């Protein structure tokens, strides 16, 4: 499933520190947008504000036909936003007391009200898609980092979110597991899924994204197709950053 996303004037402050200084961003259905930039520039906060893991101070978030005014969002608004977004965490954040299959089923049975049978069938289908068809009964503690992150992605997939949010999905992984997780994200991207990815993997951003956004100091400094950002960046700050990481 895929939705149109429109973000207007999103502001987030932690005390006196302005982390997001008014972000405007639109995503077309099925569009894949990668966000790059130095640490501490609000990339993750932007993602976390979109589903209210961090509560934005001002701005408007619209996903599909749902539009929420951040400053006066009710509990119901927040839940509605969360039910339209899937979130993949840097540290996987699998439910430690649930097996891989139960991790995938949880949102379906508890949030969506699916029957146990339907949810289990869908979970098993996704487990096969993420290459873990035989690990459904494993608890997170018994899985490798790469496997855990694939389950983390599967948990977000299970809800058929209109917008998938990836918060540095490979940053906590040992190098040997990065490849399998990126492969999985590529496959989801091929399925016409609208996604917003914060990543430090420049090569990955270049090949998967329709559009790359460079953020610094809580603002979008520059954006464009990967070829432009990586090949012909206009802003000095973008070029300086790419030189450092490149």
């Amino acid at each position: 499933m895929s939705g149109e996303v429109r973000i207007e004037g999103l502001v987030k402050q932690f005390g006196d520190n302005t982390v997001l200084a008014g972000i405007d961003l639109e995503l077309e259905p099925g569009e894949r947008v990668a966000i790059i930039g130095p640490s501490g520039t609000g990339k993750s906060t932007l993602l976390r504000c979109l589903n209210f893991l961090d509560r934005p101070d001002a701005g408007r978030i619209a996903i599909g036909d749902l539009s929420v005014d951040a400053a006066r969002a009710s509990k119901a608004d927040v839940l509605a936003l969360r039910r339209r977004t899937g979130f993949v965490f840097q540290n996987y954040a699998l439910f430690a007391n649930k097996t891989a299959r139960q991790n995938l089923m949880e949102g379906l049975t508890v949030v969506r009200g699916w029957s146990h049978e339907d949810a289990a069938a869908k979970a098993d289908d996704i487990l096969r898609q993420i290459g873990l068809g035989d690990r459904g009964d494993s608890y997170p503690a018994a899985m490798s980092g790469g496997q855990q992150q694939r389950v983390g992605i599967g948990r977000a997939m299970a809800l058929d979110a209109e917008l998938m949010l990836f918060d540095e999905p490979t940053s906590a992984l040992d190098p040997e597991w990065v490849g399998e997780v990126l492969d999985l994200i590529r496959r989801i991207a091929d399925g016409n899924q609208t996604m917003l990815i914060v990543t430090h993997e420049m090569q990955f951003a270049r090949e998967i994204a329709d559009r790359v956004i460079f953020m610094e100091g809580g603002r979008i400094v520059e954006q464009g197709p990967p070829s432009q950002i990586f090949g012909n960046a206009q802003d000095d700050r973008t070029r300086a950053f790419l030189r450092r990481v490149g």
Partner: protein
Amino acid sequence: MRALDLGYMLDLVPVILGYVPLTLFMAVVSMLAALVLASLLAIVRVQRLPVLDRVVALFISFFRGTPLLVQLFLFYFGLPQILPAMEGINGVSAAIFGLTLHFAAYMAESIRGAILGVDRSQWEAAQSIGMTQGQLLRRIILPQATRTVAPTLMNYFIDMIKGTSLAFTLGVTEMMGAAQKEAAGSFLYLEAYLIVAIFYWVIVETLSVGQRALETRLGKAVAR
């Protein structure tokens, strides 16, 4: 000095045994009630519900700050003097009431600690898939907190079983009360109190075996 009257002790075994059910009844009922109450108190504290949070803090402070025996006397002898509803409260009820509130206060703090000890990412993951606060507590946080707090709660349960012996001061004939009566009649205090001590000891040790089994079961999600 005299020899221990083992024959008398053996004679007391069936007598004391007859009161084991009442002791266990008081302990189990108090424990279950305390668990429910303590969980509610802990959630109020964790969620920092306005006003209620203050009330609960005061409740916990009072019941942790005063002796159990004093609390039992308050419920049995004191409060009925001003509260008509409590007039004629029997000793067993008063003991269960007192044990529940007393231990709930302690357990609430342990449960609160265990809830706050669950990694923040577990809360966020549950929120991210759209769970309500109640769903995430019930489905994700409390089960994980239970695993960490189980040994502590078991300790409170053990303490509670022994705490039921104070009910004899409210005129309840439970294990301790029965031993007390026997000793008063036979003057064989050592035998009577020794046999009741052994009874408590055996009950607690039996529970400890159960505790280890329970912890193995609860620990299976983290076992590699």
